[in-house]
């Protein structure tokens, strides 16, 4: 009887351990702050759909839907912590798959390698100084000269 109880306790412990492991995998991504999509402050567009963000960063949408059909200039920050979260959320790919996607585009002639920069400061400077620019930062970064886009789906 005792041994059976022992098995039962062990089994409960095991289940608890598995649950903890599952939480360890998923909780960090749940508690991570969301990525902010930023554009040049002069942009007349204040909201964007997730699908448009995906198409922009996959090189499928090259112009904005404004009066001048301004050229989209998107920029990546592959070394930033929020990069993985950004590509996973908006392009449905891991960072490695996203990089492979762009290698595929470049070596089949379907696209040119996106511009990459190293820090949130550089990202904000580039977006604020460039017409049609779009990028992403983690919350908390100073947002001078840029506007945060509302995501509408």
């Amino acid at each position, binding site marked *: 009887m005792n041994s059976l109880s022992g098995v039962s306790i062990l089994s409960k412990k095991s289940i608890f351990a598995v649950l903890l492991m599952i939480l360890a995998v998923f909780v960090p991504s749940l508690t991570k702050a969301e990525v902010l999509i930023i554009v040049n402050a002069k942009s007349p567009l204040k909201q964007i759909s997730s699908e448009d963000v995906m198409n922009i960063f996959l090189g499928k949408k090259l112009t904005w839907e404004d009066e001048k059909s301004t050229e989209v200039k998107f920029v990546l920050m592959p070394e930033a912590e929020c990069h993985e979260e950004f590509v996973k959320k908006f392009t*449905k790919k891991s960072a490695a*798959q996203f990089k492979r996607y762009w*290698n*595929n585009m*470049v*070596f089949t002639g379907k696209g*040119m390698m996106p511009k990459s920069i190293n820090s949130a400061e550089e990202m904000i400077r580039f977006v604020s100084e460039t017409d049609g620019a779009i990028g992403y930062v983690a919350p908390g970064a100073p947002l001078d000269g840029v506007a945060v886009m509302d995501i509408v789906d």
Partner: protein
Amino acid sequence: MKKKIIVQLVFGLFILTESFAFNAGAVDIHGFISQGYMKSDEYDYFVGMKDGSFQINELGLNFSNKLTKRLRLGVQFFARDLGNIGNDEIVVDWAYADYYFWEWLGLRAGRMKAPLGLYNESRDVDAVRTGVFLPQSVYFDILRDSLLATNGICMYGDIGMGVAGSLSYQFQAGANNVTNDSGTAQGVIALGGISEITSIEANQSLSGRVKWLTPLSGLTLSVSNISLDMEIEGETDFTVPFALEYKPFATTVYSMEYIWNDLVITHEYERMTIDYDLFVPAISYRESGREKLLGWYSGVAYRFCDWFEGGVAYSEFYDKADDRDGSASDRLKYQAFQKEIIFSLRFDINPNWIVKFEDHYIDGNNQVMIQYDDSYDVRRWNLWLAKVTFMF
């Protein structure tokens, strides 16, 4: 000599390149160079493989420039060697102008890779996949030259469908450039009784792919097709001229790719139909018929960490789809199929260097070319591959 020059050029660029890419003003320059080693314990699947061979390499160098917000130009030079195919001759891999009207419509003109399956366009780019060889059941290297690229025009685009996901399409028309020493020519020689191919024309090629990004995140389904007319001339073993027409040489690939975090599951199924007409004028001999080929594979790849991923795939190929067990012909049963289990390991040493190892455990020898190896007496065999790639 050409090979030496381009190798020096590329290595010169590598030295100049400190970052991921090289930018000469507005022109983006990217490139890759791969060198592999292949060894089989039984058959010369490609020439030299049985003894072990380094004749497996690729080299590409491309230049792209965005002239306006809608217009882009690019060209890639490419050389490769695979046994006695390619021999590192430099060719224009792709070169086209791309004009974007809207998200749902763009036009291209020039030489473009053909959209067949998930990987035909990138089949020479080692860096974009886990394995060394793509599964030969669907991406048979002998047929690569016929199906690789089209000189012509293309329309493409992406159409959003709201909750139903989105459709991505690409349609091309033009001519395919197939040379007398191509894998396709080797494939014709493998039919038997043919000593030399003197001319291959593939002047009418239509290809297209529709890809559906389904509402289930990460799941993509696609169907693609290439249909081309080929006119082949050559000589039989008795130096008698012959003319062979493939009208059409058509193949359809159904593809599924599912990406979940670092896991990629792939399945592709191909049906190929070849309507042929053989004419030997000297003896007024004519033979017509239809060949139906079948290939499919399923694969799983997982990226364990930033620098390591592994993959396993199972693949089957039949050169006669209606005779999969070989019972309807007088050849050995295991000459009717080729079934493979493929294990691949990929190590990303850094963002520019990749090392891969691969093992193919093979049952049957349906894809072994008779002119490469005519000893069909072993059913189960292995081939091993190792490859190093540098890209920027």
